[in-house]
C-alpha cells in the first residue's frame, strides 16, 4: 500500500507520525511530501488570523462543528502558536477552545509552534497542509499565531482568509493601515455582543469603502449629492463582507460559513482560484530554491574562509554586501 493509500484509508497513526516528520523537515518527511504532492490541490484552505484574544480558536471550533454537522465535510485544523525566542519552547493552547470537536473521527486538530518563523505561520505549515490535503481532508482551517499587523503569510497560503476583529481594539486609523485588513477576504467582528461593536463595524465599513468605492448619496448643505462609483473595479470584483459573530454562542456562524462558500465560488468562477494556486506554488518554489542554493553554495565554501569573512564584517572592515560579493566571486581581501 502506498503512503497516500494508507493516509486515505484513514490510518491516523501514519498521518500523525508523518506530520511530525514534515514538521521536523526530515529526509523521510521530504520523501513523503514528494510522493504525496500529486494528490494535493483539492482542499479548500481557510486562513483565520487576527489579534490575540479576538476569538480565533473559538471561531475555528464553531466553523469546524458547522462544516461537520451541516455539510459532513472532513475537517483538519492546523493551529499555530508562538515559540519562545529564548528557549524555543512553547505552550500550545488552542485545543482548550476546541473541545467540542473531540470524539469526531472526521476532525483532526494539530497544534504547531512557530519555531522562530515570523509572519504568523511556522516554516512547515504549508507542508502539514499538503499532508492533510493528500489524506482527503477537504476543508483545512489554518489558525495563525495572532501577533497582529504583519501576519500576511496566511493570505499567500489560504484560498480564503478571515480576519477577526473584536470591539475595543483600536480606532479607525488601525483599520486603514496597510497589512492585515488588505489580506481579508472576509472580515469577522467577533464578540459582537460586547459594547462598542457599532463603532468597530463603522470603522471597518469606512476602511473598506476607501478601498472599494461604492455609489454614495448624501445630504450636503441641504442638497442631495451623488458620488458615482468608478466603472472599473479598483482591485477585483470581490468586496470583503463584514460578518458579526458571537463564537461562544455560535451566533452568526451559519452566515459566516455561507460567506466562505460564496467566496470559494467567486474564486472558482473568476479564475482567481487557479491564479492564487499558481502564485502560491511559485512563492513556495522560490523559497525552496533559495534555501537549496544557499545550502549548495555553502558546501563549496570552506568553513574557515566563511569565518574569516565574517570576522572582517564584524571588525567593520567589510560591509555585508561586499562580503557577499567576495564570497560569490571566490576572492579574498
Amino acid at each position, binding site marked *: 500500500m502506498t503512503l497516500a493509500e494508507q493516509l486515505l484509508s484513514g490510518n491516523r497513526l501514519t498521518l500523525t507520525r508523518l506530520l511530525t516528520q514534515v514538521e521536523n523537515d526530515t529526509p523521510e518527511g521530504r520523501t513523503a511530501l514528494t510522493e504525496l504532492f500529486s494528490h494535493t490541490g483539492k482542499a479548500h484552505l481557510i486562513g483565520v488570523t487576527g489579534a490575540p484574544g479576538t476569538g480565533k480558536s473559538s471561531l475555528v471550533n464553531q466553523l469546524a462543528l458547522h462544516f461537520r454537522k451541516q455539510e459532513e465535510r472532513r475537517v483538519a485544523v492546523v493551529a499555530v502558536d508562538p515559540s519562545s525566542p529564548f*528557549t524555543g*519552547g512553547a505552550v*500550545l*493552547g488552542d485545543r*482548550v477552545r476546541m473541545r467540542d470537536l473531540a470524539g469526531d473521527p472526521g476532525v483532526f*486538530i494539530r*497544534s504547531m509552534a512557530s519555531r522562530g518563523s515570523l509572519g504568523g505561520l511556522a516554516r512547515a505549515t504549508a507542508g502539514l497542509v499538503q499532508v492533510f490535503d493528500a489524506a482527503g481532508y477537504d476543508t483545512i482551517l489554518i489558525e495563525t499565531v495572532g501577533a497582529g499587523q504583519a501576519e500576511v503569510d496566511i493570505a499567500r497560503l489560504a484560498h480564503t482568509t478571515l480576519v477577526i476583529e473584536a470591539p475595543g481594539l483600536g480606532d479607525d486609523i488601525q483599520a486603514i493601515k496597510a497589512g492585515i485588513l488588505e489580506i481579508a477576504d472576509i472580515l469577522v467582528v467577533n464578540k459582537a455582543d460586547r459594547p462598542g461593536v457599532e463603532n468597530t463595524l463603522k470603522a471597518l465599513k469606512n476602511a473598506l469603502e476607501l478601498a472599494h468605492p461604492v455609489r454614495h448619496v448624501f445630504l450636503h448643505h441641504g442638497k442631495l449629492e451623488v458620488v458615482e462609483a468608478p466603472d472599473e473595479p479598483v482591485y477585483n470584483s470581490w468586496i470583503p463582507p463584514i460578518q458579526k459573530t458571537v463564537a461562544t454562542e455560535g451566533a452568526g456562524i451559519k452566515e459566516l460559513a455561507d460567506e466562505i462558500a460564496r467566496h470559494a465560488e467567486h474564486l472558482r468562477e473568476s479564475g482567481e482560484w487557479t491564479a492564487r494556486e499558481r502564485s502560491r506554488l511559485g512563492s513556495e518554489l522560490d523559497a525552496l530554491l533559495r534555501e537549496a542554493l*544557499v545550502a549548495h553554495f555553502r558546501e563549496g565554501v570552506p568553513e574557515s574562509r566563511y569565518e574569516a569573512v565574517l570576522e572582517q564584517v564584524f571588525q567593520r572592515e567589510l560591509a555585508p554586501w561586499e562580503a557577499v560579493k567576495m564570497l560569490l566571486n571566490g576572492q579574498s581581501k
Partner: protein
Amino acid sequence: MSEQKTSPEHGRRIRVLVAKPGLDGHDRGAKVVARALRDAGMEVIYTGLRQTPEMIAEAALQEDVDVVGLSILSGAHMALAPRVLELLKANGQEQVKVFIGGIIPDEDLPRLKEMGVTGVYGPGASTEDIIRQVKAAVTE
C-alpha cells in the same frame, strides 16, 4: 555551518500533552508544570480542564506527543490512569511516557508504576526534577 541548526536533530523538540482528567477544577499545578516544560525548551500542548481519558488519548494521537502529563487531584487516579494507558496502547502509542502530578497516596505508587506510569509527583516536587526525568524518559 549556521544552516545546520535547522537540521532534523536540532529541529526535533520534545512534545508533551498536559491534560487534566476528572472533575476537579484545580489547574494551577498543571499550568506551573506546562510553563516549566516550556522554559526547558519543550513544546507543550495544553488541553485544559475536565478531559475524559478518550479525549486525552485522541489529543495525544493527533499531536504525536512523546509524553503525556496527567494532573489529578480528585483521587480518581486508579481509575483514570489505567484507562489512559490502555487507550494510548490501543492507538499504537505504547511508546508514549505517562507522568502524573497531583495528590497521590504513597501506597498507590507501586501499582501505578506496574501499570506503566513513568513518574509520579506530589506537592512540593521540584520542576527541575520533572524536567530532568521527562528528558531522560524520552531519550532512553
